[in-house]
């Protein structure tokens, strides 16, 4: 991004390769619509392209990219008055909740019940907790990066993800333990 901000146009392709997969994963999970996710990804990257001259030397790219994507997504959802959907199955795997609950991989009925329950719990969570949980557990952002994206402190992010995680554990009947161990 630094090279691109200074005028190296060829660096945009590298920037795309670096940020597009993670952004797309995030947008796809939020929209559950491949076409819409690609549309929002395109808007995000073109915004970064337009704003390259404002990029601060030494600043981190990913929190900025996620913040733009998130803003465009929120505006998109508001405009269309559509509810965002959460892909619970991916979250179960990403957070290790299935294995913690002792659910066998081939027990599809049970897995679906767990998935439905997790989805319900996620939707019932405050937005602050849910989004923090998704950014850290699913998108792989560090606590510091997620804090930048959401405009809050690292301590607040840790608290939100912990609360979300605790709620999910209770929902699927998983034993309590450290988040990082699962």
């Amino acid at each position, binding site marked *: 991004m630094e090279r691109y901000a200074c005028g190296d146009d060829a660096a945009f392709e590298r920037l795309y390769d670096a940020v597009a997969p993670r952004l797309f994963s995030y947008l796809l999970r939020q929209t559950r619509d491949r076409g819409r996710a*690609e549309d929002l990804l*395109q808007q995000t990257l073109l915004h970064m392209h337009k704003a390259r*001259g*404002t990029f601060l030397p030494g*600043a981190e790219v990913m*929190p*900025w990219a996620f*913040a733009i994507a998130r803003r465009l997504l929120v505006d998109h959802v508001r405009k269309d008055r559509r509810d965002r959907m959460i892909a619970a199955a991916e979250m179960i795997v990403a957070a290790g909740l299935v294995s913690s609950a002792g659910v066998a991989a081939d027990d599809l009925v049970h897995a679906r019940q767990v998935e439905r329950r997790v989805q319900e719990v996620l939707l019932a969570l405050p937005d602050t907790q849910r989004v923090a949980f998704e950014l850290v557990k699913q998108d792989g952002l560090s606590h510091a990066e997620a804090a930048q994206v959401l405009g809050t402190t690292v301590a607040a992010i840790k608290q939100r993800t912990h609360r979300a995680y605790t709620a999910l554990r209770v929902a699927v009947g998983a034993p309590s333990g450290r988040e990082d161990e699962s």
Partner: protein
Amino acid sequence: MMPTDSLKVRVLEAARNSPSPTRRQVTRRSVLVLVASWAITLCIFWALGGVRPTHRPLALIAGTAASALGIALLVAWGAWGRGRSMVGRPRPVLAFVIALAPIALLATKLAWSARFPDGLAEWPTRAGFKCLGVCLSTGILPLVAAVYARRFSDPMHPVLSGAALGAAAGAFAAFLVDLWCPVAYLPHLLLGHVLPLVLLTVVGAVLGRFVLRVRPAPGG
């Protein structure tokens, strides 16, 4: 999960077809806009009377003006700076900056004026409407210039960022008005010096809502 290759082709082609300014070009443009806005503002200030010492002791003028300038610089640093992060300053910092400007300006003006005889005396002929006009006249252009220079750049708190820029513009205007106005009577200060700062903060918030916020790039 990966985006399609065709998307990559589309994005790269769209970027090629609509060149964007580099950092150097953006910096040059921003400096130009801000300097021009301040040059015009100073001309307006001068046309309205400029620095008017009246009967005030030099120490009083220097004290209040230096305090006001220091506060304005601090607020501008908080509002304009982004703390080495592309997502800008956290919400509590912006809120602090917005609250700091009027409170600190009023408190320092009163504190300095109280140290001089009749420093806080009432001036029946000066309610504060002229100061209100001068403050708004000298604050609005730098605010518009700052918001323009930062347009479409805030993905997090555009309203708060705009309000902070408004508070900074208002603080600089209050500094100029302090050089112009000898009155430190509390009701006068509230009407003529603090109210315009608050109004500029509100205008900044509205501009931030529509101008600072990130929106889809044309063709995106």
